[in-house]
C-alpha cells in the first residue's frame, strides 16, 4: 500500500474514533435537549388566569387583588362569548325540529371546546373533578383549544379503501347566518383578553402536592419519595459497603474464600436490576415481611443491595490509594490496626469514599426496576418520615413511567412528565457532577 493511502487510513481511523466520541456527546445532547427544554417549561411558562386562580384556590398562593382584577377583566370578555352561546341556544329553541337537531349535534362539540378552554360554562353544574373545574392553565394549550373551537377536524372517509386525510372545517362557515357565527372571530380576537396570559414562574412545581392525578399541581410527593428511597438505601449500603471495603483491603488474606467474596461482589454488580426487584419481592416482602406490602423500607433495602457493590468498589479504591506510609507511621507509633484504620486511613480515603457514595446515591435515585414490586405506587400523597416503614411512596422514576404510559391523559400532561424527567435527571446529574468535581479536587490536591 502506498504511503498516501496509509496516511488516509490513519486519518480516517482517527476520524472514526473522534466520530464515536462526537456521536456520544450528540446522543447526550439529543436526549437531554428536549428533556431540558420541555422540562424547564414545567416551571417557566406562559400561564393563563386559570392557572393563577387554580393556584390561589387550591394552594392559597398568589396576589388575591391582582387575580381579582384580572378575573374581572377576563370575565368581561368571556361574558360576551357566553352571551353569544346563550343567544344561539335560544335561537335554536325557535328553529324547526330538523334544523335544531342538526345544529344541536354540531353545537355540542363547540360547547365542549369552549368549556375545556374557559372552564365550566355559566349554568353548568360545578364539576366534581378538579381537572374540569378550571379552564386551560397553560397558554400554548389554550391556543390549541382555540383551534378546536375555530375548526372542526374532519376525516375524509368517502373512499373506504384508502386511509383518510384530515382536514379542518372552519366552524364559522357551519354556523354561518346564526347568532353563533360571530363567536368564532370574537374568540380568536379576544383569546388573550379572556385568558390573561402572563409569564409565570411556578416554583411550586417542585414543592406542591399533585392535584387530580398530576393534572394540576406539583411533583413534591415524587421528589420526596425519591429522596427517601435513595437516602434510605444509602443508610444501609454505605456503612456496610465501607466496612466490607475495609475488610477487603486491610484484613482479607488472599485465598479461596476471599476470591469467592470478590467474585460475589462483581456478580452482584452484574445482576440485572429487575432481578433485584424480584428478589426484593420474594425476600424482603414475602419472606422477611419487613412490611405488609410495598414500602419505602422494602424499596430502600432492595436498592441498598443493588448499590452495595458500587460502594464497596469505590471505597476499596479510595482506601488502596491512601499511601501505605500513613499506615506504617501510625502503627509505628503504637496504634492498633483498627485505630489506624479509623483515625488515619478512613479520613484520608474519605473524599474518595464519598465520591463513590454520591454516585451510588444517584444510581439509587434513578433506578426504577427494583422498586416496581417493592416500593412504588402511582398516586399517593407525600408521606411522613414515620411512615417509611409501612407506606409505599410515589417516586420520580416510577411515576415518569406511569404518567408517560399509563395515565389516562398522558398526552395532555407531557409538561409534567418532562418536568419529572428533568428533575430526576438533574438530581442524578448534579450528584454525579459534584462527585466528578470532588474527585478532580482530590486528584489536584494529591498532585500538590
Amino acid at each position, binding site marked *: 500500500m502506498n504511503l498516501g493511502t496509509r496516511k488516509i487510513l490513519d486519518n480516517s481511523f482517527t476520524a472514526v474514533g473522534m466520530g464515536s466520541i462526537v456521536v456520544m456527546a450528540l446522543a447526550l445532547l439529543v436526549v437531554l435537549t428536549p428533556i431540558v427544554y420541555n422540562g424547564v417549561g414545567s416551571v417557566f411558562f406562559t400561564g393563563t388566569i386559570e392557572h393563577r386562580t387554580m393556584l390561589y384556590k387550591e394552594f392559597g398562593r398568589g396576589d388575591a387583588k391582582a387575580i381579582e382584577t384580572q378575573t374581572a377583566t377576563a370575565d368581561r370578555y368571556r361574558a360576551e362569548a357566553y352571551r353569544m352561546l346563550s343567544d344561539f341556544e335560544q335561537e335554536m329553541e325557535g328553529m324547526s325540529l330538523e334544523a335544531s337537531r342538526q345544529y344541536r349535534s354540531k353545537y355540542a362539540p363547540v360547547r365542549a371546546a369552549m368549556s375545556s378552554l374557559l372552564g365550566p360554562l355559566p349554568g353548568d*353544574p360545578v*364539576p*366534581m*373533578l*378538579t381537572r*374540569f373545574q378550571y379552564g386551560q392553565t397553560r397558554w400554548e394549550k389554550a391556543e390549541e383549544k382555540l383551534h378546536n373551537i375555530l375548526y372542526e*377536524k374532519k*376525516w375524509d*372517509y*368517502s*373512499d*373506504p*379503501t*384508502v*386511509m*383518510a*386525510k*384530515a382536514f379542518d372545517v372552519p366552524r364559522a362557515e357551519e354556523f354561518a347566518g346564526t347568532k353563533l357565527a360571530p363567536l368564532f372571530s370574537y374568540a380568536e380576537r379576544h383569546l388573550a383578553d379572556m385568558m390573561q396570559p402572563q409569564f409565570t414562574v411556578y416554583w411550586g412545581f417542585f*414543592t406542591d*402536592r399533585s*392535584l*387530580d*392525578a398530576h393534572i394540576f399541581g406539583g411533583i*413534591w410527593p415524587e421528589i*420526596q419519595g425519591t*429522596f*427517601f428511597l435513595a*437516602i434510605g438505601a444509602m443508610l444501609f449500603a454505605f456503612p456496610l459497603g465501607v466496612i466490607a471495603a475495609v475488610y477487603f483491603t486491610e484484613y482479607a488474606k488472599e485465598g479461596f474464600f476471599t476470591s469467592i467474596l470478590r467474585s460475589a461482589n462483581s456478580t452482584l454488580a452484574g445482576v440485572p436490576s429487575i432481578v433485584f426487584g424480584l428478589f426484593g419481592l420474594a425476600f424482603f416482602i414475602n419472606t422477611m415481611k419487613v412490611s*405488609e*406490602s*410495598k414500602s419505602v423500607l422494602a424499596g430502600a433495602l432492595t436498592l441498598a443491595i443493588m448499590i452495595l457493590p458500587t460502594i464497596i468498589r469505590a471505597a476499596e479504591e479510595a482506601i488502596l490509594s491512601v499511601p501505605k506510609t500513613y499506615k506504617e507511621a501510625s502503627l509505628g507509633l503504637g496504634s492498633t490496626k483498627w485505630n489506624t484504620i479509623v483515625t488515619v486511613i478512613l479520613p484520608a480515603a474519605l473524599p474518595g469514599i464519598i465520591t463513590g457514595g454520591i454516585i451510588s446515591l444517584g444510581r439509587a435515585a434513578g433506578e426504577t426496576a427494583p422498586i416496581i414490586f417493592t416500593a412504588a*405506587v*402511582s*398516586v*399517593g*400523597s*407525600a*408521606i*411522613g*418520615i*414515620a*411512615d417509611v416503614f409501612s*407506606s*409505599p411512596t410515589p417516586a420520580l422514576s416510577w411515576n415518569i413511567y*406511569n404518567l408517560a*404510559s*399509563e*395515565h*389516562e*391523559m*398522558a*398526552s395532555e400532561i407531557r409538561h409534567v412528565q418532562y418536568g419529572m424527567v428533568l428533575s430526576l435527571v438533574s438530581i442524578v446529574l448534579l450528584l454525579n457532577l*459534584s462527585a466528578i468535581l470532588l474527585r478532580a479536587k482530590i486528584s489536584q490536591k494529591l498532585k500538590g
Partner: protein
Amino acid sequence: MILKRILLLLTVLLFAPVDGGAADGGIVIDGSTTVGPIAKSFAAYFTGRYGVPVTVSESGSGNGAKSLINGTCDIAAMSRAMKSREIAAGATKGVSPKEHVIALDGIAIVAHPSNPVPSITKAQIAAIYQGRITRWNAVGGPNARIVVIQRESNSGTQGSFRELVMGKGVKITRDAETQASNGAVKNRVSSTPGAIGFLGLGFVDSSVKVLGVNGVMPSPATIQNGSYPVSRPLYMYTDGEPKGEVKRFIGLPETVDGKRIVEELGFIAK
C-alpha cells in the same frame, strides 16, 4: 462546608411537614388500570372531603386480587370479576372477597382517526385478534396492515375483551403488540395509522376513532340497555363487609357526587 449546608437544607426540606403527611389509617387501593381513574378521583375526593389519605396503585386487576388476598390492600379495584381460583386462594388465607359493582364500562374498539372503516362485527374483531385477518381491506377498509394492539395479560380489560369478543380459550395472536395500560393503548393507536386496539370507554377521546360493533356505537345509553355487546361492570372488592372509612369509600358510587365523578370520567354510573 457547602456540602454540609446543602445537606442541612435538604434535611429541612425533606422532613418539613407538607400537606399533612401521615397516612395513618389510610386506605390502600390496588388493581386495575381501567378502574384507576375512578379510584384516583375517588381518592382525591375522599381525601379532600374526609381527610383520610388514600393511595392508589395501578398494577392490573390480577395484582389487585393478589394484594387483597395477601392483606396488603384494603380495596382491590378490578375490571373483571374475581376468579373462583382467586376466591379459593383467599379462603385459605382467611380472606373472603366481597364484590361491589362501582360502574359500568364499555370496551371501545378503537382505530386511528384516519381509518375509514366505520363499524366492524364481533366476528371480524375476533378474527383480527386471532391473526386470521391481517389487512384492513378484509373488513372493507384500505389495503394496509393491521397493527393489533392488546393489553398485558394481567389486564382485566383484556380478560373481559377475550371473554366477550373472542370466546373462552381462543388466543390472541402472538404478533399483537402488548401495552401495559389503557392510556398506553390509546397513545399507540392514536399515533399508528394501521392500529386497532380496545380501551375502557373512559379513556376514549378525540385522538382515536371508535369503531361501532355490529353497527352499534358504545355510549351510556347503548351500554345501559345492553345493545352494545362489549361491556362489563367494574368492581371493587373488599375483605368481607367493609367497615369504617372503607365502607364510606365503597359507598361513594352510590352518592350523587360519586356518580358524577364516574360520569365525568366517561364511565357509566350504575
